[in-house]
């Protein structure tokens, strides 16, 4: 299975049309395409939930379906575990065609492979937290002691240790959603389906839950399909985002792709008001370091030549481990004027004065890049964990990426 690169979840041209006569609408889509929702409802009595939506989610990925209310994102999510029966198209989980399963097989998939978290928590108010978290195990027929133990573990995982015997109404919204999460995790499913899981929480709690969720997910390793109307949330949590409008997916990509190259029109508008400095990272805007760097042992002649060729004000000298050792300033360098010698051979007092190197990790957000850039004249060096150079972010690039933003 090590070479199995097939996706964990795959949706192929999934349609969901509410109302009778859905086949005609799907077959004759060109005729109905131009109409808006109200016209279509009047003409056909049907509402199109999702139209021809296709996407893939690889194992361990956090995939986000993003769109405004009524864009069909929750409908599409529900097509995955057939809470909504797709009108057309296919859904695969581990290459198994979910749309073709019998009721019994479908129940087994729901019991073992998928867990679901709901917008308004959907807890059972008459049960305490253990019995809420144990619901999935209970319907599988696990005996009471065993499922109680697993439910305790799940509650502990989401930070609700000590609350096991409480009832949902005694808890705040954020805590209730933790129970929802514990319930979904208790059966140890490979896939989590999350429907606006944090949308009903107030902003502060929401933020906190998102952070904890990201941490938790790193621990438990799940494939996640996450539905939200909140672009910030999508960008914070997801590896991949699909943006939906009127039931169709209008753009898919990584968060940076969406922010930096939004599809014309709808997505562009969406992304417009975004504080991009919070989402674009050094990694997204850095350039290949080749034109800036030379080995530390190079001669002054080589250095001047390279800097003249590329019109550089600054250059970087690397050691054998690809770490930046020195940052060279052209003006200072010309003044010292020691051609053709290796830099090391220039007497101490004649050496060009070096600037301190400013290096940042690749995941630094534009926001802090701005701060760093303000404090220095030199281009920023992007390094990996070992300090190896990954790329260069010239200060102009920071400004242009702000402008395009």
């Amino acid at each position, binding site marked *: 299975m090590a070479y199995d690169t097939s996706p964990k979840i795959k949706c192929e041209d999934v349609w969901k049309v509410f109302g009778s006569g859905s086949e005609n609408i799907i077959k004759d889509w060109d005729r109905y395409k131009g109409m808006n929702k109200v016209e279509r409802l009047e003409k056909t009595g049907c509402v199109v939930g999702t139209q021809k939506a296709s996407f893939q989610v690889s194992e361990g990925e956090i995939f986000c379906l993003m769109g405004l209310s009524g864009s069909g994102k929750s409908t599409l999510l529900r097509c995955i575990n057939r*809470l909504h029966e797709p009108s057309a198209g296919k859904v695969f989980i581990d290459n198994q065609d979910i749309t073709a399963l019998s009721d019994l097989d479908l*129940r087994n998939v729901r019991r073992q492979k998928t867990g679901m978290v*709901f917008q*308004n928590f*959907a807890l*059972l108010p*008459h049960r305490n937290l253990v019995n809420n978290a144990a619901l999935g195990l209970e319907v599988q027929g696990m005996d009471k002691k065993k499922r109680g133990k697993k439910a305790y573990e799940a509650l502990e995982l989401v930070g609700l240790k000590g609350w096991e015997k409480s009832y949902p*109404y005694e808890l705040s919204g954020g805590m209730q959603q933790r129970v929802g999460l514990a319930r979904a995790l208790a*059966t140890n499913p490979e896939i989590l389906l999350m429907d606006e899981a944090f949308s009903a929480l107030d902003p502060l709690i929401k933020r906190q839950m998102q952070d904890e969720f990201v941490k938790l997910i790193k621990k438990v390793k799940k494939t996640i399909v996450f539905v939200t109307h909140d672009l910030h949330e999508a960008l914070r949590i997801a590896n991949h985002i699909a943006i939906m409008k009127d039931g169709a997916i209008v753009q898919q990509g990584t968060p940076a792709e969406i922010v930096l190259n939004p599809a014309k029109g709808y997505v562009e508008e969406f992304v417009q008001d975004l504080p991009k400095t919070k989402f674009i990272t050094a990694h997204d805007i850095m350039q290949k370091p080749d034109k800036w760097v030379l080995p530390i042992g190079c001669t002054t002649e080589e250095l001047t030549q390279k800097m003249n060729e590329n019109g550089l004000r600054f250059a970087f000298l690397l050691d054998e481990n690809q770490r930046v050792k020195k940052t060279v300033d052209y003006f200072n360098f010309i003044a010292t004027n020691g051609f053709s010698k290796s830099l090391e051979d220039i007497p101490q007092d004649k050496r060009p004065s070096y600037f301190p190197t400013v290096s940042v990790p690749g995941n630094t957000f534009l926001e802090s890049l701005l701060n760093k850039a303000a404090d220095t004249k030199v281009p920023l060096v992007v390094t990996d964990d070992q300090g190896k150079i990954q790329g260069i972010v010239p200060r102009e690039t920071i400004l242009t990426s702000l402008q395009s933003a």
Partner: protein
Amino acid sequence: MNFPVRIPLGKWVEVFVNWLTENFSSVFDSIKVVVEFLLVQLDSLFVWVPWPVTLIVLTTIGGLVAGRRVAIITAACLFGLGAMDLWIIGMSTMALVMTAVFISVLFGLPIGILAAKSPKFDMVLKPILDGMQTIPSFVYLIPAIMFFGIGNVPGIIATVIFALPPMVRLTSLGIQQVDHEVTEAGIAFGCTPIQLLLKIQLPLSIPSIMTGVNQTVMMALSMVVVAAMIGAGGLGSKILYSIQRIDLGVGIESGLGILFIAVVLDRILQGLTKKQQDAIMHNK
């Protein structure tokens, strides 16, 4: 001016009911046997147990399920009943009402569930329920006598017909009102339809179902007097007697007796699910 046609509906019904009585007497007889058995067991139990024991037991139950307030109310009501010299006859009424309520719930609950699950069934059922509630209850008495003769059993059957609709309606309403997301959660975690019903839909409709039980108890008690007209015993017959004699004292006392029984039955029945109801209502 004369109406152009006269539809002999009454005749038809008469013929139909006669046909039923002749051809299905064995069915009605067995219904009668079962209902009578239930009633007699309950009645003899309540009448046989000495009043202090009943009072203490019911008070304790009231206290256990619903707290001290209900215990006090229960004790006061039962004491009042005995103090008006209505204990034995009151216990008969209690047995009558409990039998009717038991049968109503027994049928009302599944019918209500079916109505909630099948819109078609609901469509057919609705006018029938409307009819059962609006046609004056006296009208049921005639076929009830024809099918079951005179006495307690036709009284109970007529009571059940009258008391069944709220049970059915409120059960159905309760299930339909269960938060859609919670139902979805049940399905998403792999509930079978039966598990969904037992673990999620029924428990969450308890407040509504118990309102149905409450209504059923109240309607059964109000039917007790009507049923007395065809020979059902208990406080109803006493009230009937007081109407015939215009005896205000007996009427008032018996009426209060019915009220006391209603309070005791309702508080204890509601108390049984109070905790669950509170948790559910709290969450809304």
